[in-house]
Structures are given as structure tokens and as C-alpha cells.
């Protein structure tokens, strides 16, 4: 198989030079970093603090680090597989080559739903933030809907027009939002801020004991949720085997720093009972620091973080939807690429009304839980994926751009942490968990017994790899 002739007409799904218009390879490692961190950083500006509410301040820190460990495993595993399977669709394409079509279909749906829901949640937050500003300027009863719609329409347009501009935009606003966290930390630290932070007086014992730490893992995922989206850019990166591992691992390091700093500043400024239910914790923290400049900065940071996140989500969800359409897992109509802008334009258009339905019609916590659960199911798939990958193609069978160390330890750690996270979601949100999985069981049966008949069998295996061992 390795000695194939690439001009052969026989090769499945790959008529040589058959691609008349494909996605454009223009991105560098910085864009990969911006895509990964951009989606996630909003978690530092809102949402992570519910972990404080579920288990207390220390529980949130422990959850932050355990979730960090979980995501470090995710990033390492992802980097290895993706540096080898570099195609739009990311984990979907990985699953297709390594586990099997039905798994791939499920993974594709996890991706689309996790990102589209997150996009809806971001748009809701934009509306909320603008309303807050309006109230501060003395205007009550603002209609938030036009701003929610505008955020989604503008970002969809940006995505439609081309990936380079989209991710350059993400890069700039993500860098500003990240700098805002650093500036807040420096300005309130003992070096510059005097005695603003009051950790000694504000920290309490664990209000729920150890069970609270487990429960806090649920929202601990929010510190990092979405970093795995870097792989969606694989088909548009100039040098995927190098840029993807670099961008992804740099991204997870950035987030570990940002998450810890955010926790440190916030718990030093607010009683945990308040922090645990705050809508915009970093903005509140800036408010408590007593500086108007910081308040404006963190307000802008919150807005930019939500926009960067929604932007990355549109990018990732449409790539996954596009890749599934291209393989006929979904109607093939979605597999089209815009001849001028080189974007999967039909997928981008299709996902706009869906995001609008959820942003305007569903409650925020419901949308967030849907997103977290889809993410969690995806992380459970990753260890299975990498173990099978190493078994079917051992290290000497194909060339990898990056090999993650200590295999299979990261995979097993990841699997255990996923188990803990399921339990954490179960504490309080058990019904949604079961409803969600019931949904995936039903669509799996639908795919296996109906939809799969439209898929070409061998054509979906596109990587020029040797036959997997044991098959």
C-alpha cells in the first residue's frame, strides 16, 4: 500500500488533482493557538465560577488542576493523532480512520453540538453584557435580541468570507482578552495593588467536604472546554504536522496559567457564596478592585472573549458539518467549498439559524449543559481512539508528526477523569445526562440502519496508510 502510484485512477475517493476548489492552506501556529485559546478563554470570563458554587473556593482550584490534567492528556493525544490525520473534521476524521464509521458519525455530532451550543451561549452573554452597560448608563429594558442576532450574523459573515481574516480577528481579540487577565492579576497583586486581595479572611473550609470537589469537576471543565477544536483547522494549516501540536500545547499552557490566575484574583476579592453564582466573575473582580480603568478593561475583555469564542465555534462546527457532508454521512450538499473564499459556505449558512434558535429560545444553563455533555462524550472517545491507533498502527508503521510520551498512561488517566466528570455531572444534572445519551443512541441507530447506506465504503478511508494490523 505504501508504494501506491498517486496518479493511479483506481484510488478511492481521490481522483488525482480531483479537487478543483478545496479549503485554503494559509494558517500558521499562531492561528491555531488563537483558535484553541479563543474558544476557551471565555470560560475564564464566565462559567468556571459555578465550580466555586458547587464545592467552595478550594474545590474550584483542585477541580481546575484536575481538569487541567484531563485537558493536558486530551491535548497530547490529540496532537499525536492529528499530526498524522490532518483533515478538516478533526476528531471526526480520526474516528473514521481509527475506530469506525458509526463512532465517527457520533463524534461529528458531538463536535457540531458542543460548538453550536457554546456559540449560542456566547451570543446570549453578549446580549447580557450590552444590557448591563445600558443599565449602568441609565437605560432600563433594553431589547437584547438585536445584539444577539448581530453577533451571530457578523461572525457568520466573517467566517463566510475566509478563514485567514476570521482567525486573524480571533488572534487579535484573544490576545487582548488574555492580556486583560494578566493586567488584572498584576494590578491587584501585592506588588502593585497593596492589600486588595484578602485571601486569608475570605477563604473558608470546604462547604460540602470531598464530595464538593468531585461535584466541582463538572464546571471545572469550563476552564478549558473547546481546546480540542484546534484540530478542525488541520486542512487549512500550512504545516499541520508541526503547527497543530505546537499551537495546541501552547494553548493548553496559556489556559492553565489564565485559569489559575483567574481563580487566585477572584477568590481574593469576593466571598465564595457570591462568586459561585456570579454572571461575569472577572468583571465583578475588576469592579471590586476599585479601579474604573480595570473595570472598563475587563468589560472589553469579556466582550472580546465571547466574540472570539463564538467565532471559533462557527469555524469548528462548520468544518465538522462540512466533513460529514463530504463523506455523505450527511446530505452531500453540505460538502461544497466556496470557489472564491474557499470556505465550507453551505455548512456555515445552515448552522446560523440553528445557533439563532438556541440563542433566542433556550435557557442558558440548559444550553451550557448540552455543550459540556457533548464535550465529555468526546473526551471519552479519545482514549479509546489513541489506544486503537497505537494498536492498529504501531509507532514504526507510519510516520507521526508528534508522539505523545508515556503511552498508555495519558489515555488511562483521561478515561478515569472522564468517569469522575460523569459522576460530577450526575450530581445535580443526571436527567440531562440520560436524555443526552438517549439522543445519541437514537441517532446512532438511525445512522447504522438508514443513513449509512449512502456512504461509499472504501472511499472514506483517505489516508495513505498501510493496512491496519489485525484486519
Amino acid at each position: 500500500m505504501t508504494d501506491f502510484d498517486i496518479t493511479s485512477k483506481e484510488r478511492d475517493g481521490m481522483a488525482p488533482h480531483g479537487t478543483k476548489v478545496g479549503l485554503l492552506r494559509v494558517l500558521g501556529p499562531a492561528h491555531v493557538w488563537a483558535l484553541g485559546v479563543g474558544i476557551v478563554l471565555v470560560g475564564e470570563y464566565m462559567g468556571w465560577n459555578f465550580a466555586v458554587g458547587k464545592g467552595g473556593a478550594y474545590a474550584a482550584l483542585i477541580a481546575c488542576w484536575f481538569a487541567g490534567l484531563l485537558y493536558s492528556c486530551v491535548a497530547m493525544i490529540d496532537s499525536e493523532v492529528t499530526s498524522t490525520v490532518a483533515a478538516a473534521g478533526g476528531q471526526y476524521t480520526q474516528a473514521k480512520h481509527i475506530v469506525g464509521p458509526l463512532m465517527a458519525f457520533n463524534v461529528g455530532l458531538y463536535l457540531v453540538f458542543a460548538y453550536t451550543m457554546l456559540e449560542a451561549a456566547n451570543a446570549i452573554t453578549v446580549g447580557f453584557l450590552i444590557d448591563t452597560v445600558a443599565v449602568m448608563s441609565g437605560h432600563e429594558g433594553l431589547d437584547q435580541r438585536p445584539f444577539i442576532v448581530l453577533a451571530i450574523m457578523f461572525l457568520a459573515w466573517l467566517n463566510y468570507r475566509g478563514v485567514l481574516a476570521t482567525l486573524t480577528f480571533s488572534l487579535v481579540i484573544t490576545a487582548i482578552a488574555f492580556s486583560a487577565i494578566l493586567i488584572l492579576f498584576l494590578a491587584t497583586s501585592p506588588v502593585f495593588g497593596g492589600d486588595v486581595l484578602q485571601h486569608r479572611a475570605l477563604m473558608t473550609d470546604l462547604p460540602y467536604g470531598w464530595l464538593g470537589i468531585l461535584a466541582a469537576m463538572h464546571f471545572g471543565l469550563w476552564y478549558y472546554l473547546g481546546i480540542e477544536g484546534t484540530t478542525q483547522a488541520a486542512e487549512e494549516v500550512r504545516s499541520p504536522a508541526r503547527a497543530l501540536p505546537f499551537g495546541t500545547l501552547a494553548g493548553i499552557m496559556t489556559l492553565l496559567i489564565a485559569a489559575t490566575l483567574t481563580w487566585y484574583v477572584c477568590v481574593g476579592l469576593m466571598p465564595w457564596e457570591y462568586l459561585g453564582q456570579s454572571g461575569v466573575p472577572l468583571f465583578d473582580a475588576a469592579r471590586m478592585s476599585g479601579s474604573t480603568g480595570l473595570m472598563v478593561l475587563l468589560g472589553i475583555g469579556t466582550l472580546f472573549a465571547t466574540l472570539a469564542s463564538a467565532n471559533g465555534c462557527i469555524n469548528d462546527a462548520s468544518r465538522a458539518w462540512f466533513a460529514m457532508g463530504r463523506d455523505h454521512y450527511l446530505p452531500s450538499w453540505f460538502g461544497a467549498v466556496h470557489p472564491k473564499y474557499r470556505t465550507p459556505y453551505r455548512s456555515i449558512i445552515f448552522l446560523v439559524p440553528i445557533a439563532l434558535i438556541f440563542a433566542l429560545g433556550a435557557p442558558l444553563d440548559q444550553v451550557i449543559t448540552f455543550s459540556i455533555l457533548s464535550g465529555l462524550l468526546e473526551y471519552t472517545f479519545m482514549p479509546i481512539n489513541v489506544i486503537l491507533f497505537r494498536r492498529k498502527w504501531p509507532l514504526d508503521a507510519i510516520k507521526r508528526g508528534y508522539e505523545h510520551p508515556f503511552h498508555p498512561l495519558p489515555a488511562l488517566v483521561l478515561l478515569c477523569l472522564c468517569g469522575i466528570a460523569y459522576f460530577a455531572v450526575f450530581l445535580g444534572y443526571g436527567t440531562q445526562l440520560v436524555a443526552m445519551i438517549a439522543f445519541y443512541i437514537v441517532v446512532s441507530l438511525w445512522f447504522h440502519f438508514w443513513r449509512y447506506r449512502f456512504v461509499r465504503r472504501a472511499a472514506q478511508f483517505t489516508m495513505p496508510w498501510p493496512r491496519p494490523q489485525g484486519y
Partner: protein
Amino acid sequence: MARYEPPTQSKLGQIVDVIVLLVLTIGALYIPLWLGLAGSAQTSNVPENPTWESLGQNAVMVEKWNQLGYADPAAAAELITSRFDYSFSIGSLLMMIVVIVGYYAIMLRFSEKEYREVISEKFNGE
């Protein structure tokens, strides 16, 4: 081995498939909501005539509460005493485990079957 030739799907069929997926998605999101099963239980146990001391708040915390706009203990009492209910039954825990493990088991089984077909068509034809 005979190559599998998929049927071509009509435009109408494509649209129907998309609608089926959409209905299922929206159902999964809204059905728990309609049944009133969504969200987690949080209860507050507010004491009568709460004071900052009885709520366990020290001087610094009181200062922070004031800064946040909670001028008197009664206003903040509900927030401070609000707690999640983490009690659960072993039965529902077991049910969750069965559902998750069952889901992955079914999916991996079907995937494996489809995957073998893909590999044999891909590599046996050459």
C-alpha cells in the same frame, strides 16, 4: 470483493434526513425542560433575623458584601445559605453507569462491523 455502490439520494430525501436530525436535537434539549426535570436542586435555609455573625461572615467578608451592593445581612442571607442537594440513590447511579457503558458498547460494536467492511474493501481490491 464486490465493491459497494451506494444509491444516490434524492433532494427530497436529503432534506428529510436533515429535518429528522433537527427534530431529534431539539427534542433532546427541550424534552427534559418540558418534563420539569432540568436543572439542579438548590435550597436555602435562611434563619430568622439573620445577622452577619449568625451567617458566619467575618469583618472582611462583610466589607466585601457591602461593596457588592448587599447592605444588610437579610439581603445576602439567601445567597449565603444556599446549598446544593448532593444526595442520590445507588439505583439511579447504577442506571447512569449502565446507560453510558451500554451506549459505548453498542456504538463500538456497530463501528467495528462497519470498519471491517471498509478495510476489506479498501485493501483487498489492490
